[in-house]
């Protein structure tokens, strides 16, 4: 565990010794605010809930989380530090976990900074705070899933730009499969059963229910599985570097 903590601390230091983390957090909070108030028409809805806020999370996370994760491995591969890391008596899972947790912590900090919205709805009315808490919990889990995707793509390339583009594409695939447009197309092309299965692969499907306060075990399992699956992929991609 101390090795995971050492990697975690180093990654956090890397985020905060450059403007990267500050810029990310500021732009993330600003973008969420913009979407909530402008596109989501937060005040016009006249409802004491955060649905206008949560509805944009999957789409914004699809861009922002790959941005947080893109340097996790790509930069070490580019600079050659990966060679130092892989010759330490530190298991690969500890490297993967430490780096992932650091990026996830940055996302958690950014998400936590949106708390004034939660306070605002409580001042304006009587929201279902349990539903909002569930929305935040699943938002954090979804951020973890997209960061795990970003980490996996970062482990494939020495270029942060390539890692970012790949991560956005994979994240898009795990988001857009839940759109009605895709579901209808799949329904016509492959039948209702396959269309339903494909839709269930989408983060949209699992997040929307949670954002309304409906906590389902299958959704919890979905996000945790995505995290585990892409972190395992990251470990395999890093270990494959030993083959040269």
């Amino acid at each position: 565990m101390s090795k995971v903590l050492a990697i975690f601390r180093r990654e956090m230091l890397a985020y905060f010794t450059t403007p990267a983390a500050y810029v990310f957090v500021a732009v993330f909070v600003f973008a969420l605010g913009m979407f909530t108030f402008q596109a989501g028409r937060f005040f016009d809805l006249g409802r004491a809930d955060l649905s206008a806020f949560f509805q944009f999370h999957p789409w914004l996370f699809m861009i922002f989380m790959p941005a947080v994760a893109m340097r996790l491995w790509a930069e070490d591969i580019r600079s050659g530090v990966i060679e130092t890391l892989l010759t330490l008596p530190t298991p690969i899972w500890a490297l993967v976990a430490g780096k992932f947790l650091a990026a996830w912590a940055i996302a958690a900090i950014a998400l936590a900074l949106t708390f004034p919205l939660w306070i605002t709805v409580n001042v304006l009315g009587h929201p279902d705070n349990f539903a909002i808490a569930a929305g935040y919990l699943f938002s954090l889990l979804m951020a973890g899933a997209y960061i795990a995707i970003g980490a996996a793509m970062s482990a494939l390339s020495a270029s942060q730009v390539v890692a970012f583009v790949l991560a956005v594409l994979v994240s898009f695939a795990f988001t857009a499969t839940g759109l009605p447009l895709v579901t209808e197309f799949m329904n016509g092309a492959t039948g209702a059963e396959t269309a339903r299965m494909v839709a269930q692969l989408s983060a949209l499907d699992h997040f929307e229910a949670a954002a309304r306060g409906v906590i389902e075990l299958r959704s919890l399992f979905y996000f945790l599985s995505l995290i585990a699956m892409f972190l395992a992929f990251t470990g395999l991609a890093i270990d494959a570097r030993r083959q040269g």
Partner: protein
Amino acid sequence: MILQVEGLRKRFGRRVAVDAIGFEIAAGEIVGLLGPNGAGKTTTMRMIAGYLEPDEGMVKVFGVDVALDRARAAERIGYLPENNPLYDEMTPLAYLRFVAEARGVDAKAARGRVMRAAQAANIGEALTRPIEMISKGYRRRVGLAAALLNDPMLLVLDEPTDGLDPNQRGAVRGLIRDLAPERALLISTHSLEDVAAVCTRAIIIDRGRVIADDTPEALANRFPDGLEGAFRALTRGEAA
């Protein structure tokens, strides 16, 4: 025997980078690994350090097979990779502390180890300046200090004096000599001067094979132009 290498082989696609290399190194030996560019020096060192997996063959460090127990072997190895990659945004102090803690040393003990390694590598005044702001010589010392943090039995140093000025070169050679008595050192270098100055043995490899393994003096005596003549003749395949 601190290091045993047997029948090491590595291919990259169709190219054979290392072809059945074998040698042993005992405590107190400073072995220079020589060879032209692309001869397989770095690949050999990477396999010894556990970064690359050999296609065939075996590396044992103090009896521990690197392929079977990489973590235990890594505890006995100090490794300076080619080009000395470091986290540029960190200070040497923070970087060395990170490497110590990532090796599993607790924070309190790490402080002591970092200071000892920094002192041995003579990092001195550069310890608290960002790595991106320090000279190449100091960067090399930071890499060397990181390799010394675990007080390793085997030091594998890939071109430790590359790009250094004569003073810095002299300092690194002095450090290598100081480290030798209780350890085994394997040094890859292009500098025959370094080999003559510090190495007790020289292994010359070419096209992935060991073509000579002797003391620098013995190799130098076999050819009219000394060690340089030996290197030129052997790596062109003109004599053996």
